[in-house]
Structures are given as C-alpha cells and as structure tokens.
C-alpha cells in the first residue's frame, strides 16, 4: 500500500457505523510498550533509536498479523505526508515533529496503527467506528501478543509495563472515545458535564488529542489511570461514563426538538446553506458548520446527505488532505478557496 492509496478510501473509524454512531464518532485504545533495557526514545542515542526501529521492524515482519500492514519510515516522508497521517489519526502530532528513526505501521483499513519511537518505543492503537471499545480491545490485544512474542518488553510484575512517563505505567493503556455533543453545547450544559468528568479522573481533549481545543462540538474523553485496574476494568469504567453522557446528549437533543424545533431547523439549514454556497472558507468554520449539518442528519432535518459523507468531509477539508487531493503545495488562502470548492461539489451531488 502506498500513502496516496489512503486518499481513495474512508478510514474505518469515519464510516459512521457501529453502536451509538449518532453521538459517538469513534472508540480508540492505545497501548504503550518498551523494549527491556533499551533507553526510551527521548534518552536514546541516534544509534540506539535506530536499533529500536530495526528491532520493531523485525518483530513486525515475523508476525503474520502485522506483516501484511505497511510501514512508513518518517524520514522518507515530506511535511505534507506526515501531516496527512496526523489528520487521519494514524499518528500523533508529536510523532510528526522530529523524525529520527521514527516510523508508523498502518493496516489497510486504518484500524491498526503502530508508532515506533514516539514517547515510548511502541505506541499501538486501534480505532473503531462508533461506541465499541471491547472490539478495539480484541484487536489490540492480538497485535500486542504478536509483538510480545518477538520483543522482550520492559515489564515488572508489580508495576506492569514500564513507560517513559510514569503516568502511563501499568497497563500502558489509554482508552478514548470521541463524542459529538452539539446539543449539550447549545443548551450550555456541557460545562457541568466536563467538570464532572474531570472529577472522575478522566480527561477531555479536542479532535486532535493532547493540547487541542474542542472545535465543532467534538470532545475526546479518556481515562487517566492506567495502573491498579485491569484492561477490562478500565474499559468498563469508560463505558459506564460514556453511556451516561450519551444519555444526556440524547435527552438534550429531544428537548431541543420538542421545544425549539424552529430555531434548530433554522440553525442547521443556514449552516448547510453556507457550506453549499461559500467560495472561501477556513477549516475551523467548516468544522463548526459541518457539526451542525451532522446533527441535522442525525435528527432527520437534513435528508439529502448521509452521516458517512459528512464524516468524510471532516477529513477531506483539512490542510494536508486538500494538498494531497490537489497534488501540490497550497498557501492558506489557496486552501480556503479549494476547500470551499470541494465542499460545494460534494454537497451538490
């Protein structure tokens, strides 16, 4: 698989399918793993980083499961390519920054991705569309077993998997669920929800992970505790919390539909109208308007476009994706024009 092949299909997690996919965009699990005795990436010499990459590459090559995936060595990619992988959630923003002996392994459906030499030697992640952490666990557990067969992990029976940052030690697992909560935002109840989440030692982030702000009413909720609870307990705890948030968002949507239907229809249809007719548009404005259009699809207010196409647009309108589609470098102004063009053509179909 070449990098450009990814452009022609939709990432598994954006398909808009799976349980509760009207509110939950995707479920993601990641495991942090390190090779025994080998210095962590930030403390490694160039030579050591290289040997980590080689060891991981060799381990991947020996596994039937991982062998068929594609490895992208970041030194071989240009800035747009790296940003493209970040936009597709296949690797973190941090991973794209310094490139020494870094790589990412990606499967064709973009369900599995394995970053090598990020903060830890190995950061494996599995993404599922909708609310489906248990299935993500099934997949990531197999990927982890496959790598553990070949690599000797840094592990202590007492403290579990040993990671560069002690906040990840233990299971090394972080579960994140991406939620679309426009009704809670509109009714100004979101702040209460976020404060409650923080109290329960979960964190909330924006669309692109650590350090990003919530735009377009998207919120990513993850566990903070990784030690002292088993993987299934962690998943159970996240599930319990997410179920409550889904319930609240559903109720809010229902209330809005019953008491403020006119206002809601107006807001949604105006957003749809701007997207269908704009000639210059930033990615931030697009994300905010698309969020309302997505709500419109979920509530049956907008019927001529489905959730999958809206999800796809969220991805395609981003800077690196636009440049990949146009196959050339574009300035920010040029992108705003191309973005509007793309949206008009996609929505007029």
């Amino acid at each position, binding site marked *: 698989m070449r990098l450009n092949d990814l452009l022609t299909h939709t990432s598994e997690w954006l398909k808009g399918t799976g349980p509760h996919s009207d509110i939950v965009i995707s479920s993601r699990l990641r495991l942090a793993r390190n090779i025994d005795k080998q210095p962590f990436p*930030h403390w490694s010499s160039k030579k050591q980083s290289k040997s980590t990459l080689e060891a991981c590459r060799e381990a991947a090559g020996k596994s039937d499961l991982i062998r068929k995936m594609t490895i992208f060595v970041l030194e071989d990619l240009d800035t747009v390519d790296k940003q493209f992988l970040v936009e597709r959630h296949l690797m973190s923003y941090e991973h794209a920054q310094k490139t020494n002996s870094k790589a990412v392994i990606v499967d064709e459906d973009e369900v599995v991705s394995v970053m090598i030499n990020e903060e830890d030697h190995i950061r494996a992640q599995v993404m599922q569309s909708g609310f489906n952490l248990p299935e993500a666990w099934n997949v990531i557990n197999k990927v982890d077993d496959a790598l553990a067969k070949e690599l000797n992990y840094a592990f202590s*029976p007492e403290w579990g998997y040993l990671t560069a940052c002690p*906040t990840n030690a233990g299971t090394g697992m972080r579960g994140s669920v991406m939620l679309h909560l426009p009704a809670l935002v509109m009714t100004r109840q979101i702040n209460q929800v976020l404060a409650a989440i923080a109290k329960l030692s979960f964190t909330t982030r924006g669309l692109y992970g650590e350090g990003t702000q919530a735009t377009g009413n998207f919120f990513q909720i993850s566990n903070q505790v990784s030690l002292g609870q088993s993987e299934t307990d962690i998943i159970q705890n996240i599930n319990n919390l997410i179920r409550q948030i889904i319930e609240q968002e559903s109720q809010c949507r229902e209330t809005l539909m019953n008491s403020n239907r006119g206002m809601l229809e107006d807001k949604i249809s105006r957003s749809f109208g701007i997207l269908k007719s704009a000639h210059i548009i930033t990615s931030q404005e697009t994300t905010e308007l698309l969020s309302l259009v997505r709500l419109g699809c979920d509530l049956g207010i907008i019927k001529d476009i489905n959730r999958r196409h809206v999800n796809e647009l969220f991805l395609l309108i981003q800077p690196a994706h636009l440049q990949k589609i146009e196959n050339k470098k574009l300035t920010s102004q040029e992108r705003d024009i191309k973005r509007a063009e793309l949206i008009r053509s996609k929505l007029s179909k």
Partner: protein
Amino acid sequence: MICDICGKNPATVHLTEIIDDQMNELHLCEECAHKKSAQMEQQFGLSDLLAGLAGFEKQKDEKEGIALKCPNCGMTFKDFKKIGRLGCGECYAAFRSFLGPLLKRIHGSNLHCGKAPGSRIAKLTRRKIEPGETRAAPGQDTVAELRIRLQKAVEAEAYEEAARLRDRIKELERTAHQEGKKE
C-alpha cells in the same frame, strides 16, 4: 472575538482552565497565547507536577535522591526530576523508593493487575531475582496477583480467605528473599 489580554488582536486560541470545579475560559491571540504558555510552563512544568505529586521534599532529595543513578542507562534522579520522563525500564528499580509513592499518587494504586507479556513467564524463571523483587514458581500465582485477590477479599469482607491469602503472600515473599540471598 478579541484577545482577552491585549484587547487588540483577534483571539484564535481558546484556553479552558478548571480550578476547583470552577471553569474559566480565556480567549487569546497567538502572540499572547505564546507568552501565556511560556509563563505557564515556567510556573508549572510537568517535572514540577510529577515532583509535586510524589511529595518530594527538598532535603530528602538532596540527601537520598540526588545520588541515585540508573546503572543501565545512566539517568540520574536529578535528570528525571528535570525532564519528567524516565530513561529506561530499569530506572523504575533504580528510583524505586521515590517511584512507589509517585505511582500511588498518580494512579491511586501502585500494584499492576492487568495483562502480562506471555513470553515473559518462561523467562522469569531463569532470571536472577532482584533485591526486593518477589516471584512465584511457574504455574503458581504471583505475589502481585495474590495481593489483588487479598484486596478484593477484604473489600468483600471475606476475612477467612483474606487471612489465607495473607499467609500465602508472606510465605512467598520469605522464600523469594531466601532464594535471593543464596544467589
């Protein structure tokens, strides 16, 4: 929206702080956001946060901590405090006395009860026991597993089972200690 700090430039960065359940929103322009983040890092770097979490006292650090150094990767405890990241897996053993309480503060527990690498079970039996480390014979429960069961038994008020588990842990720890001495 205009920047909350300079009141001139349009705000492009939106910062949400939660302090004691009180949520504050700040809307900043890029320039002021840079200044603010530099300020925040100075006030509150991750390493300070970690150090703060472990309740490190300055004096204790100077006496005990500073001298610690990981024999495998050469990271000193001072490096760890500065960077907020460990150097390698062996650092956990090297800085054990500080990391135990730190992990407990971060996670509310310092006892792993999740998955273990499958291939490790066989290897463990061949490895030399480190001081302070406990292990079980192949096919038997590890001390860590027993401790979790003990904790659960106490929570369930199953005291007979708890007493049995406590004795088993003691026994295992004693054997491990003696074996360690022999080797």
